[in-house]
């Protein structure tokens, strides 16, 4: 058997006839050549084709699992091949299960305490839940490499740490979860937690702690997701807002522009997320004093929000506020310019000059 010309590590092994067939298929599909009878026979010969029976089809389909979406198994589902050398391993696994169950129990108690408005009990209970879950995750990480279970334990521990307001611990758990090569759905969930944690730091004004988290979230999304995946503009916006809050307008600008471009490409023109992106970019121009560029963006954002949201939606108020502030700044500049001309021509004591002064003062 001849090995296909450039295939390494046995990914595909073909006979010469197979290789010829593959080459022919390629030409027919991609080079759009008409098929001769001879070629058709080469590509499909009913006499040689062993079509799977209905029973075979059903049996094979029963086995079909999506290879792209390995959902986390529950801990109780974990089965291992029993063997003497694995006895210790099984004991460890029992310990992991036990710790996980304790963590769940504590989290349930914390939830009940919150429902019963016993605020002083909530955080300590979540702290206990976190301690147990962290132990379970670390034990699991040390003892074996179950790629599905491990990120789930880290994610759960991070959740408990966030509830207990232990942010550094939450960060550690998220990062460990991300480094354990989780399936893509779990990666997205862990990145969601990273965004949430960054948001907490942002709200507290701790920008230097939020920044590396948002940068990491964006880098991972750009690496692992489709170019126009809906999570990417969210990530770009979050990081842009952070740069803007730190006065780094030049770094924020390309991020807002890219987020707007993706949303305009993938969403309806009147989608509220498009308005959010227009608003972000418009507000940035406003902060940079580029009022001519800011105005059409902020006006368009308002128009979309008024059309797509209900009249008393908070985002409509935000847009009205932003636009009002822009008009106010534009008015201020006009009054200042008028005042300079009037003062030069009429002096300071003319009633008209005083009136203009008054307009400026009351803005």
């Amino acid at each position, binding site marked *: 058997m001849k090995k*296909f*010309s*450039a*295939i*390494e590590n046995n*990914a*595909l*092994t*073909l*006979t010469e*006839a*197979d*290789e010829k*067939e*593959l*080459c022919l*298929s*390629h*030409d*027919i*599909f*991609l080079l*759009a050549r*008409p*098929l001769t009878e001879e070629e*058709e026979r080469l*590509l*499909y*010969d*009913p*006499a*040689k*084709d062993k*079509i*799977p029976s*209905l029973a*075979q*089809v*059903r049996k*094979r*389909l029963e*086995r*079909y*699992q*999506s*290879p*792209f*979406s390995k959902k986390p198994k529950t801990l109780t589902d974990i089965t291992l091949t029993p063997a003497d050398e694995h006895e210790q391993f099984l004991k460890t696994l029992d310990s992991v299960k036990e710790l996980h169950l304790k963590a769940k129990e504590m989290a349930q108690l914390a939830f009940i305490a919150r429902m019963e408005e016993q605020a002083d009990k909530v955080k300590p209970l979540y702290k206990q839940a976190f301690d147990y879950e962290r132990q379970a995750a670390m034990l699991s990480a040390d003892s074996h490499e179950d790629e599905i279970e491990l990120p789930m334990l880290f994610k759960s521990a991070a959740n408990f740490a966030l509830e207990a307001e232990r942010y550094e611990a939450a960060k550690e758990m998220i990062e460990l979860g991300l480094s354990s090569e989780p399936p*893509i759905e779990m990666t997205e969930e862990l990145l969601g937690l990273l965004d949430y944690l960054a948001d907490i730091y942002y709200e507290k004004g701790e920008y230097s702690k939020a920044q590396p988290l948002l940068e990491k979230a964006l880098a991972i999304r750009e*690496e*692992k*997701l*489709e*170019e*126009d*995946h*809906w999570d990417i503009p969210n990530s770009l916006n979050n990081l842009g807002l952070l740069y803007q809050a730190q006065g780094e307008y030049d770094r924020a600008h390309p991020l807002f522009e890219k987020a707007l471009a993706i949303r305009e490409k*993938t*969403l*309806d023109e009147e989608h509220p997320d498009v308005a959010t992106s227009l608003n972000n970019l418009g507000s940035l121009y406003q902060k940079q004093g580029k009022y001519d560029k800011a105005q059409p963006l902020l006006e368009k954002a308002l128009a979309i929000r008024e059309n797509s949201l209900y009249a008393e939606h908070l985002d409509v108020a935000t847009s009205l506020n932003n636009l009002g502030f822009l008009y106010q700044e534009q008015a201020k500049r006009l009054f200042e310019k008028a005042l300079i001309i009037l003062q030069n021509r009429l002096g300071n004591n003319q009633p008209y000059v005083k009136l203009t002064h008054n307009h400026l003062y009351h803005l």
Partner: protein
Amino acid sequence: MDARKVQAERRYTSIRYDVYQTVEQKLHFLFKKPIRLTSIDNNALKYWQKIWQPHNHRYPPEGGWDWRNEILRQTLPNRFEVAIWHEEILCGLAMGKPSVGSSHLAIYLMEGSPLKHPLNALVTRIVLEVGMAYALVLGKENLMLVDPLEKMMKVYTKRYGFEFKTARNNPKRFCIIKIER
């Protein structure tokens, strides 16, 4: 037409139907969206012509294939084909062909709607799911994406675990992944 070929056409149509049904169920579970999978039938071709065509400014290999022509040319009974719908909106089309032996199923053409649609960023994933299931049913060992677009390479390799390969003969560039059994 050869009676055996007619019979084969019937059998493979039925196999593809079973594959669509199974994958649809998985997709409902995963994405909670009203996704429908069908062959590239008259409904799909009508939708393509009336709704996609006037807005499609792509050119092969970036998309923009004449799907009516492609489906007419593909007379092999065991061909791979799928039309991906979100309720009554056609969101994606794909075509391919299994090898005569057990080595692979190759996907040659894949295109998402040129219009904004509810399965944005999911069409590739869905085509790969259907491809995997069809390859499994036919007993093929690998799923192959022929002449992958450069801009999609990251998605195929990093997100879905394909390996990128090159060869001296056609197909010169392809991505490949082993079928899990």
